[in-house]
Structures are given as structure tokens and as C-alpha cells.
């Protein structure tokens, strides 16, 4: 599950790099990190 989260994060981050040169990457990190953290605690 964690691998899937990381994979999804990387995909979205690369899309953001392509579209906006990574302007939203901090937001994406926060979003996916929170999901990852919940999974890590579970």
C-alpha cells in the first residue's frame, strides 16, 4: 500500500514538474505524506 502511495505521489509530482515546473510540489508532498503517515501508523 505504501509503495502504491509513493508511486502515485511520484506520478503526480512528475506531472506537476511538466505542467508548472513543480510549483505545487510542496502541496503534493503534504497531501501524500499525510496518507503515507496514516498508513505507516496503521
Amino acid at each position, binding site marked *: 500500500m*505504501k*509503495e502504491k502511495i*509513493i*508511486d502515485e*505521489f*511520484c506520478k503526480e*509530482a*512528475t*506531472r506537476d*514538474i*511538466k505542467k508548472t515546473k*513543480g510549483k505545487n*510540489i510542496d502541496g503534493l*508532498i503534504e497531501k*501524500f*505524506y499525510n496518507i*503515507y*503517515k496514516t498508513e*505507516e501508523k496503521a
Partner: protein
Amino acid sequence: MNELKGDLKITLENIGGYLGRQEFTIKEKGTKQDGKVLQGINRIKSPNAVGKSSFVYGLETLVLDEKDIENQRHFLNVFESEGRVELKTNQKEFIRRIYAKNGKLTVGGVQIYPEGDKAKVFAFAVEDNPLMEMVKRNEPLRAELLKFSGALEYEEVKKRLADKKAEHEREVQKYRDDLTKLKTLYQTKDQLEKKIEQYEEKRRQLPELPKDKVEKEAELIAKVGKKSKEKTEITKQIEAKKEEIKRAEIRINEFNQVLNRLKQRVKDFRQKHEDIERELEQLSRKRQEFTEKLEDLTQKQNIKQSELRDTNTNITRYTSFGQDYCFSCGQTITPQQLKQRLDKLNRDIKELGDDIEKKSLEKDRVTKAHTDLVKEKTTIETELEREIQNKEQTVRQEDNARNKAGTEINKFEPELVKINLALKELEKGLDEKTKNIMDQRSQIDTELGKLDERTKSIKKQLKDLGDTQAKIDEMLTKVKFFETASQHAEKTAHQLRTAVKENFDRRIMEIMGILEFKEFQKIYLDDNFNIRINRQRKGRVEPDTIHSLSRSEKETIGMVIMLAGMEEYLADFPFFVADETSFYDETRFNRLVGYISKKVPYTIVTQLVPMEKQENLVVEYE
């Protein structure tokens, strides 16, 4: 993009060299013509400057992104400000318009392929193709070949995550430093609590005192305290007055010293000038004498000057008119007598002048001596006397202040004696033992108060740092997230790079095989996507660089890499366009075109034909 089928009717209006409308038909692979099945190879043939490249501009206008057309002013005829390209099939129609504005082009209408930049790199073998240029200059192709693979974005994500990880690790270190601080604070808190316990134990061990005794003792102590305070107050006042006396005496001493100096100056002056009025009168008289003497000398000098003028007149009369007698007395006079008289008069005038100067200096000296003496007399009689009077008055004031302070001290001293007696009487009533215990209690309470304050402050700091461990745990989870994600991004980037490289290498060798380049054992991309060539000759294989290849070979390899890229990234793009193909080896170029035609529905190549053979542009279908 499989929307284009069958014949394509392409109409150019004011594109490139074309003025007005020009129509072309491009045929798809598999179309039947004259009983034959076409390969989809459309050859645009013409001599120079008839419109081959303009046709390619038209295709680029249909395909490229707006930003890539913006600077291609030559796509539009130089005499026109608006042009258009239409592409029609049986089912569909696309129109793209271009407008010239401030030396640039703006674009309207529908783009036939959404990724025009990719198509430009891998499907348009034209003069300004970036990949072809890089191959010819032997530049690393990494960025260009990976641009559309996603690997570069994964590399960027990896880099950003690595930076974030490093940043958070630094933060963790900072929190760990806080943890060390926390440890020290806990130790200090423990020590303080131990000390508090020790003091409390000490207090408990002090003997109990009966309440009435404590109250009585406390009352006495309070009275002693009050008296001691009074004593301190009076002592303080006596000390202050003594200090005042000391300061007044210092000042009196200073003023007396100044007074003595002033009085000595007056005394010295009076001794020097015992009878000053007489002295001044003598100087005045002397000055008068000099004045009279000077007047006398000046008068004599004036007479001599007058005689000199007469003599000069006689000389003029003799010299100019030959008159040898004196015009004043009428006596005969010779030139020698005139000369002697003239010399003597000049000498007398000079001597008188010297005398006048000497006497004037002496008169000035006497006048100055008189003025200086008058000035000094005035200074002594007015300013110094006044200063002496002032200083004497100040000394008297200081003396009064000193005496006043002395009187006050005399008033305070009996009072102090009285207080000391009362204090002694009170202290007699105090029980030393009880007082000692009470003092110890009081000291312990003061210490406990201080320790309590320090403990409170440490507890506050501990509270502030309390969630440090939780913060560290959170940070470490984040660091782990960054690390895992960074590794994943790097792994994916590597997979993509490897896949792209392997695909390119495989396709390059496949196409090279079709073209029968037997002199090359291998053409491949190294890890940095530089083109590497291994030449072979008589069983020997040697690495070579692209610089040693002919122009035709370089362009062929450039096109081979384009084709490999087209298969990798442009599987659904319907065209492959090659403009100005005259540099290619004809046999190999035809094999290349054959290969292309198997991969795309529409292969479009432009070819130069000599003017003698053909005057107009013709499209041939194969």
C-alpha cells in the same frame, strides 16, 4: 491520432513562397492507383525555389505548437499579413491561420496533433530539426531523447526530494540538540529538587520554639530592628554631613590658592610700579618731546625739499635756456656749483629722513609703553580686584556651609548616643538561642524561595521543549517518506532511461542493417546518450567519432535516430517529412524511405530536380 484517412487535400494560402492558394493531394499507404497499391510515399519534386520547402512550412503550420510558430515569420509570404493552411479528408477538415504582427506570427484555428514539439523533433527531417543539428555537432542527445520519456521529470522529482530530505535531516539534528538541552534541564531540575529536600529537612531538624516565646522574641527583634534602622538613619546623616564638610574644605583650599595667586600678581605690579602716575607722566612727556622733535625735523626736511626744487629749476634753466644765474637770488651760478648743491641737498634730505624714521620708532615705543602700562593698571585695578572680591565671598560662603554642617553633626551626635543606649537595653532582653534558631529559619526560607523560583523557570522550559521527541518522530517519518519516494523516483527514472536507450540502440541497429552500412560494426548510445560508433575493416573493429563521417552519413544517422525516436514516442503520428534530401546516398535513402513507409501512413519527401528536366512542382506517388 488515427483521424486522417485516405487522400489528404492540403491547401496553402500565402504560405512561404506561395501567393494565393495552392492545392496538393497526399496519398495514404494502401491507396489503390492504376491497379497498384501505394506505399504512401509522396515525393514532392521540383527545381529550386518553386515551393517544396513552402509545402513543408504548410505542414509544420498544421502541426506545431503556437510557441514554435511564433518566430517562423518565413512560414507566411513576406508580402502578406495573413495566411492559412487547410487539410481535408472525406470526413474531416482542419484549418490553421497565421497572422503577422510586429515581425512575429500569431496562430488561430485547429492544431492537427496535440504534441507538436515532439512531432517536430522526430517526424520533420528539415533544416532546423534540433536533433539533426545536435547529431551533426556531436552533442550529447540525453536531454532531447529523454525529453518526452518522463525520465527527466522523475530525475527532477528525485532531486527535489533529496533536497527536502537533507533539509529535514538538518531540522532533526536541531531537535536532537534540543533533546540534549532537555536532558541537562532534567538533571538541573533533579538537583534543585534534591536541594529543596535538603533545606526542608534542615528546617524540620531545627528545634521547635514555644509560640509565646517566638512571639515575644519576634516583638523584641522587631523593636531592635526599628531602633537599628533609626541608628542607621542618623549615622547615615552624620556621614553625609561629614562628607559635606570635607568637600567644602577642599573647595576652600582651592579658592584660597587662586586668591593667593591673584593677590601676588597685584603685589608684584605695585612693587614694580611704586609711583605709577609719575611713571605715566614721564612717558607722556617723553612722547611729547619726540613729537616736537619730529615736527622740527619735518620742517627742516621741508625747507631742504624746497631748496632742492629751486636747484632743480636752476638746472633746468641752465640746461634748456643757458641762463647761468639763480632765478631766486640773481647770483651767477656754475654747473659745478649746481651739482655740488644738488648732491649736498640730497644727502641732507636723506639724513633728515633717517633721523625722522628713528625718532618715529622711538616715539612709537614710548607710546606703546604708555598704552601697555595704562592697560595693565586698569586690569589690576578693576578686573583682578573684582575677581579677588568674588573669590573671597565664595570662600566665606563655603566656610559658612562647613560651619553649618558641623553644627548639625553636633545636634545628631547626642541623639545617636541615646539610640545606642536604647538598643543595648533592648538587646539585653533578647534570648540568643531563640534568635539564632529564628535567624536560621529565616535563612532557610529565603534559600527555599530562591530554589522554588529556579525550579519554576526550569519547569517552564521543560514544558516548552516537552514535545521535542514527538517532533523528531514526525520529522523522521517525513525523512523516511522522502527517502523512499526519492529512491522510487530514481529507480523509475533509471528504468525509463534504460528502456529508452535500449529501444534506440535496437532500432538504430535494425535500420542500419536495412541500410547495409557494412563499415559500421555498431552504432549505439552511451550512458550519457552520446552517439558511439565502432568501425570495422578487414576483421578489425575500432571506435570512431561522428566527426569523421561524411555529411551524408551524419544526416543518415541523424534520420535513423529520428526514426527510432518516432517509433518510441510518435506511434500515432501520421506523417514523416524529409525536406531537401539531395545530400543522401540515393540507394540508402530509398531504403530508408521504404522503411519509413512501413511505419507511417503518409511519407512525404521533397526532392530537387534539375530545371532542364522539370520546371514545375510535381507530386509523385509510390
